[in-house]
């Protein structure tokens, strides 16, 4: 009975409804085609229904992601309406130091994030003091919920020459006011990135560590491995893909943060993101900004390629 009714409805669409009305009521159409497929008595091929179902998502991706990306890539090669590498030449001339600075900062931060998240994940998995493990588990995720801009702001007041950190050290008599120095340079950025991104990687990593077979850890203990060896030789090799994924995601995140370099290190050298904002806001120079954007995209793509190659190799094994 209901199948018959739906057939009628879709027939009506097929013959009478004007095309505008069809596209206007997409949700109704999806519903009707879905049930027609179930009743099986209708002419629309299954592949076409599938395409229709993914069409809204595909449209969002095309219009909000691919089109702007292409326009920004073409914009990078566009100097006064002509195809040229001028933007790149200018970008390298002005900002090659900043590019290296960016890469160095993000790589150093990634390395430190890896180290700290392995330590946190390792302690959560292998720690023998249940209370310490519970406290660490409760506390380590906090920075995840703090926005980058707030991290930048907090650290700016904390790390400045007359900031809270130096004041505490001076109060404690650990150093004199004369020897106080500002950390608001590359070190400040690295501290901000590591502080903000370590919990994210540690969260992924400790989840992966918790899901490995506990008896593989006990077997190593049984044969006499200490905790550090178990972490390095037994646990870490089993979760290295997760670690790599976490680091790549945070690499990409760090490459795209503007607020931290602006807050902490608004001098030269600084990160590419700050340069891009500067090119656009100060000069309306979209060409060089696009070129810088493409360069940072190449850096993240290189990292993504390493990851893909690694996973392909593991799958082929």
């Amino acid at each position, binding site marked *: 009975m209901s199948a018959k009714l739906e057939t009628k409805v879709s027939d009506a669409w097929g013959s009478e409804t004007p095309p505008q009305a069809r596209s206007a009521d997409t949700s109704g159409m999806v519903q009707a085609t879905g049930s027609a497929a179930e009743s099986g008595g209708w002419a629309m091929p299954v592949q076409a229904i599938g395409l229709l179902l993914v069409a809204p998502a595909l449209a969002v991706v095309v219009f909000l992601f691919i089109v702007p990306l292409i326009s920004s890539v073409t914009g990078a090669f566009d100097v006064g309406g002509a195809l040229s590498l001028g933007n790149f030449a200018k970008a390298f001339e002005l900002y090659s130091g900043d590019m290296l600075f960016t890469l160095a900062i993000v790589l150093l931060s990634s390395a430190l994030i890896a180290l700290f998240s392995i330590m946190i994940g390792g302690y959560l998995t292998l720690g023998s003091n249940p209370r310490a493990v519970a406290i660490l588990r409760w506390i380590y995720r906090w920075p995840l919920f703090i926005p980058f801009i707030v991290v930048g702001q907090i650290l700016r007041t904390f790390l400045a020459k007359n900031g809270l950190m130096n004041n505490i050290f001076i109060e404690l008599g650990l150093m004199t006011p004369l020897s106080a120095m500002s950390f608001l340079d590359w070190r400040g950025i690295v501290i901000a990135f590591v502080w903000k991104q370590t919990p994210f990687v540690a969260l992924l990593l400790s989840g992966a560590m918790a899901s490995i077979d506990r008896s593989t850890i006990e077997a190593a203990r*049984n*044969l006499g491995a200490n905790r550090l060896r178990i972490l390095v030789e037994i646990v870490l090799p*089993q979760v290295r893909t997760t670690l790599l994924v976490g680091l790549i995601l945070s690499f990409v995140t760090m490459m795209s943060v503007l607020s931290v370099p602006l807050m902490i290190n608004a001098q030269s050298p600084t990160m590419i993101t700050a340069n891009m904002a500067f090119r656009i806001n100060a000069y309306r120079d979209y060409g060089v900004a696009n070129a810088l954007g493409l360069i940072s995209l190449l850096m993240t793509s290189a990292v993504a390629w390493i990851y893909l190659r690694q996973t392909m190799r593991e799958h082929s094994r």
Partner: protein
Amino acid sequence: MSAFLEVVNARVLYGQNEVLKGVNLAVEKGEFVALLGSSGCGKTTLLRSIAGFNTPASGAIRVNGHDVTRLPPDKRGMALVFQSYALWPHMTVDQNIGYGLKLRKMPKVAIDARVTEIKRLLGLDAFGARKPANLSGGQRQRVALGRALAIQPDILLLDEPLSNLDARIRLTVRHEISALQRRLGITAVHVTHDREEAMVMADRIVILNNGEIAQVGTPEEVYNRPASDFVAAFMGAENLVELSAVLHGDRIEIAAGAFNTAAVVSARGRALSGPLNARFRGESAELSDAESAIPSLREEGALRLTGTVEQTSYPGGLWRHVIAVGSAHVIVDSPRSFEIGKRVSVRIPEEALFLYSKQ
């Protein structure tokens, strides 16, 4: 002279839950002991306490007279083979077997020699470079065993090592493990819930029930002289009938009931009278056509039940009959089949009849 491995009055708690309630166990050097029990009886907990992964709330564990209760797992001279094998997936067979030796800082050449020796012992020569994912269940099991044996432990602990194997492979691996254990003269404690596996492999069987030891004995002892109703049932004497009896000197006189004849069996030191639980195995009773009436004669050295055949099946070798004896059902095997609905007589010789006073 005390035993090589001793567990003295060990109590283990998981939170408020007492999993081991004061267990005493002595294992001689070179002996193969099986811890047998159903799931949740505490057998794995006992093994893990011996291995050092659980610390008893009270009691002691001694090896060769030394107290090891508080020692870490690797300082006890024991190696544990895990139920899941717990092989390290990122290491090859050679690396898995050699890891314990690497931890002992043995030179590389010596490690290689020992790994080769272990592989030869276990028939793993061709698999040294493979990772565990590329091995069959039986091969993984042997790698796990090899990894444990490589460090030449005094005591080998086996936590249900055969439960993940196919039924057919399991039968051969049983014999391989016990043959290897005898050849190496190693002391072994083996946890299992499989009665036959324990019987076939072990010198002595420890039957655990609810955190306590129900009986310790050779396979022959626990099979033929189960100490309690629980052990009898666990060792396969599942058929249960209730009787009433009086003790007369060294004889137990069983009163005639609605479905059983009067009988006299020797007491063999058992002081039993009043209501009894009688247990027997289906294969140790004899089935025959029932006489028209229950004989008033007293049976000597055997108990005779009368019932009706309700179901028959042929599991192979013998015919299996489900027989209704009053409200109870018993299962009895017989070389020939009896028709459904037929009245039959079940004769249980006294050596196959296990009697316990009813709690």
